[in-house]
């Protein structure tokens, strides 16, 4: 029976590896690291008794009774949907600008799979000291949407791309850490250095007023709808490194009760890459002929802007991505050998992420010097509440459950499908471990239910004349599987 169950667990893990689903915690952070910790809803700062303490509270690493190596596979699948309702104007003057309003759209269903790993040694000759390195995916997004086509009447002669809004973000944390038992079996301290490698792709439709100047008179030309806007497919690709640290304390009040506190610094990742700017020109025989009829060389050249086609450039781009600091405190209550109860409260400083500014260096498709492109975020700080339990059935099988509540940092004024943390989240976790000699096989399944959100009003918080949120209805669920294998030696 034990053998059959082991095989079944492996199969399930493999299934989750191939098919599975994942989790999106606050902003673009993952739910956390480690099957056990996530399985207890991330209420782990006060327990911190396995390798994933490197993420939650590095002080806990000093508790490890032996050296340990772990590999964890995360599989992530978001289940987002968005029904756009983006119109400009007001009252009876509302008009559409190309978003596929009124239809429920799913992002492309894709499963992102990423291994986390950690290895920590009980340092020989240094009592109570543990050191090692953890590698984990701390932030992850993967959304690709088909939401837009230039409006009827724009008559772009080159087909607009199918995927027009997308975000792919991966932040991998290489995290060497060290922990020390400061007071025997009472107080533990740990700290780690964080080198974070980030890759980010960002794609959106930039809708800008088509404010052209009359080539002859220099006056503003009021182009009739839908020529009053230009549509540019903006696609940024960049990668870079950022650096930070974390530190924590763990205090065991007595054999049944312990408390932990940890801090993780904010990190600014400097992303460097380029941005593809594809300007889809309208076709309008009336405007083209109007300028041709005026006959000057400038007018004739200007008439080219109304013949359709695509103008493309690829200026260099830089983006500072500010990852938030967080601080948390957790408790663990261990009433007996079988049961462990935990709870955490953590504060994440998302307000560091005010905007994403693509700093461009190069030319626009129409030959001007490229101006920066700003995505206003104005995110808000959040407080997450977590609770978990673990029950040891016997020396082989341990089951876990966990829950957390995590508000969305994204305000109505900047919510878009690019960062679809659509609402406050309730995360439910179920998992367990099997101990087979020196090996531990663990699995956790996580389901996150997001509160639905309807955005009714377009907002322009930075006052640049461009809207910074996407109105419509948002829904999201998220599924997550973590499979891990631990070897202790």
């Amino acid at each position, binding site marked *: 029976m034990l053998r059959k169950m082991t095989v079944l667990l492996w199969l399930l893990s493999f299934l989750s590896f191939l098919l599975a689903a994942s989790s999106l915690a606050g902003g673009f952070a993952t739910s956390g690291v480690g099957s056990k910790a996530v399985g207890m809803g991330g209420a782990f700062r006060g327990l911190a008794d396995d390798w994933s303490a490197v993420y939650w509270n590095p002080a806990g690493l000093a508790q490890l009774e032996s050296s340990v190596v772990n590999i964890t596979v995360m599989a992530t699948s978001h289940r987002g949907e968005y029904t756009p309702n983006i119109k400009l104007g007001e009252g009876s*003057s509302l008009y559409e600008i190309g978003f596929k309003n009124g*239809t429920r759209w799913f992002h492309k269903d894709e499963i992102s799979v990423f291994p986390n790993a950690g290895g920590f040694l009980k340092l020989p000759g240094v009592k109570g000291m543990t050191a090692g390195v953890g590698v984990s995916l701390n932030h992850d997004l993967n959304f690709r949407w088909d939401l837009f086509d230039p409006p009827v009447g724009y008559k772009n002669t080159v087909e607009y791309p199918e995927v027009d809004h997308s975000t792919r973000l991966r932040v991998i944390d290489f995290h060497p850490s060290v922990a020390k038992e400061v007071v025997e079996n009472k107080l533990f301290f740990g700290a780690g250095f964080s080198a974070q490698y980030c890759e980010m792709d960002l794609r959106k439709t930039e809708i800008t007023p088509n404010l052209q100047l009359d080539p002859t008179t220099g006056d503003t030309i*009021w182009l009739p*709808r*839908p020529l009053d806007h230009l549509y540019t497919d903006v696609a940024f690709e960049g990668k870079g490194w950022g650096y930070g640290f974390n530190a924590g304390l763990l205090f065991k009040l007595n054999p049944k009760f312990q408390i932990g506190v940890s801090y993780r610094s904010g990190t600014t990742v400097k992303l460097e890459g380029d941005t593809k700017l594809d300007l889809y020109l309208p076709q*309008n025989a*009336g405007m083209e002929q109007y300028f041709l009829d005026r006959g000057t060389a400038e007018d004739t050249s200007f008439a080219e802007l109304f013949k359709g086609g695509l103008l493309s450039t690829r200026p260099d781009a830089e983006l500072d991505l500010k990852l938030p600091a967080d601080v948390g405190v957790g408790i663990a209550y261990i009433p007996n050998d079988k049961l462990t109860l935990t709870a955490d409260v953590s504060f994440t400083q998302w307000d560091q992420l005010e905007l994403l500014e693509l700093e461009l260096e190069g030319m626009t498709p129409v030959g001007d010097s490229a101006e920066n492109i700003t995505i206003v975020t104005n995110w808000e700080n959040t407080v997450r509440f977590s609770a978990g339990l673990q029950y040891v059935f016997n020396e082989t099988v341990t089951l876990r459950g966990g829950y957390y509540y995590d508000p969305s940092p994204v305000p109505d004024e900047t919510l878009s499908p690019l960062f679809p943390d659509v609402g406050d989240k309730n995360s439910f976790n*179920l998992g367990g471990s*099997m101990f087979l000699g020196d090996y531990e096989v663990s699995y956790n*399944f996580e389901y996150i239910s997001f509160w639905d959100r309807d955005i009714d009003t377009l907002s322009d918080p930075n006052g640049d004349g461009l809207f910074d949120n996407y109105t419509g209805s948002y829904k999201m669920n998220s599924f997550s599987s973590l499979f891990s294998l631990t070897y202790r030696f």
Partner: protein
Amino acid sequence: MIPAFKKLGILVLVTGLLLFFGCSERENPAGPQISEGLDYTGSFYDSVSFWGNLSGDLTQRNIGVYTPPGYDPTNTNARYPTLYLLHGFWGNERYFLDYFSLKEIADEMISRGEIKPMLIVTPDASSKLGGGFYTDSDSMMTAAVEYTVYYEYTGYDSMGNPAGSTAVKDTAYAELTFTGEYETYIWRDVIEQVEAAYTVYDGPWWEYTSFDNLGQPLDSVQHTRPARDYRATGGHSMGGYGAMKIAMRHPDLFTSVSAMSAPLAFNLLIEHIPDVYSENGITVGDSVGYYALSPSQAKPWTTLFFSMGAAFSPHSLSELDTTYFHRLAPADQGFVGVDFPFDPDGDTSSTIWNKWLSEDVTTMLDTNPTRFAAALDSLEIYIDCGADDQFEMNLHAEAFDAALTSAGVEHDSPAYYSGYGNLPANNFNYIADRLRAVLKFHSGNFPDE
């Protein structure tokens, strides 16, 4: 030991099921299937309405005809309602098609079921001065004029297509107008030409119900479809004015009328006489400057007064020079030109101004409510305007709205469009969007099958 494994098995089963449902592939809806109609722009035949006009405006006019998806000219059982959509100043038959994407908008709305399939006819009422204001300009004389009867093909290419033609002409006596009979052209010639060429609701028609073995009809049923219910007219700016006036004078022809940003109250134009002076850089009383006025696209108010003068107050050939006369042809051709409704001092001529007002829809309604209130009551009416109209047509809409109310005509209040961001809701910026409202309005007033 065993019960623990059973519990673990249940856990595995539950999470496996959740995984399965969490990972199923979701299908996005297919994109909207837009069926395409056709936008044909073609020359019909010489219209007597323009024969021999003194200003040298076109006599053979193109007409744009949008036919909806599925239109089959050979299927005479399928009949379509028709909207006659009149262009604005400086426009022609391609105005709505080329500038404002009429075809694409109609295709989308018909494909989505937002409007009924309909023909949309866009006549050409252009003139050398910008537009004929859908008005029959005064007759100057009766004379023999040469007109084109038909074209005879003189050669063919290798594919058998005509490669050359000769106009076969004839001569007839006609009333020579100053610039043409634009009003008559729309309600008589255009409707006649379109209804002869397309399967529209053009009154009673017969459906064959049985055939002999040679396919010849044996019996038929007469259907009666009141053509008026399936005709509508509308327009933008000058075209909105034209549509309203023609519908008021010919309510037997149309079931609904729409006007976008239209000059519906000429009294408000008086206030723009100073604009004529200012855009020409002259001052009131500058008679030299006044008589040197000439139309150009860079001077919209000046050109508008010339164009409206050609429509409403062309200078009579029998009169010599007058205070208000503005020449539009070399002196050796006589006194060919228009009379402005104001003199060099900016004072209006009541005689000339009354000619203008006789074509003003608000004045028509105010002075003859018995006829025109009844006419308008029989029509469904839609009026809209941009709130930032640079020609203040929003005030015209308000004035006509008040006149309708005063005359007891049941109607909806005008819709006033506002701008967004840097785009003001002026005379034409939002036409493409307002066209949707106009098409929906007319479609909603065509009877359901």
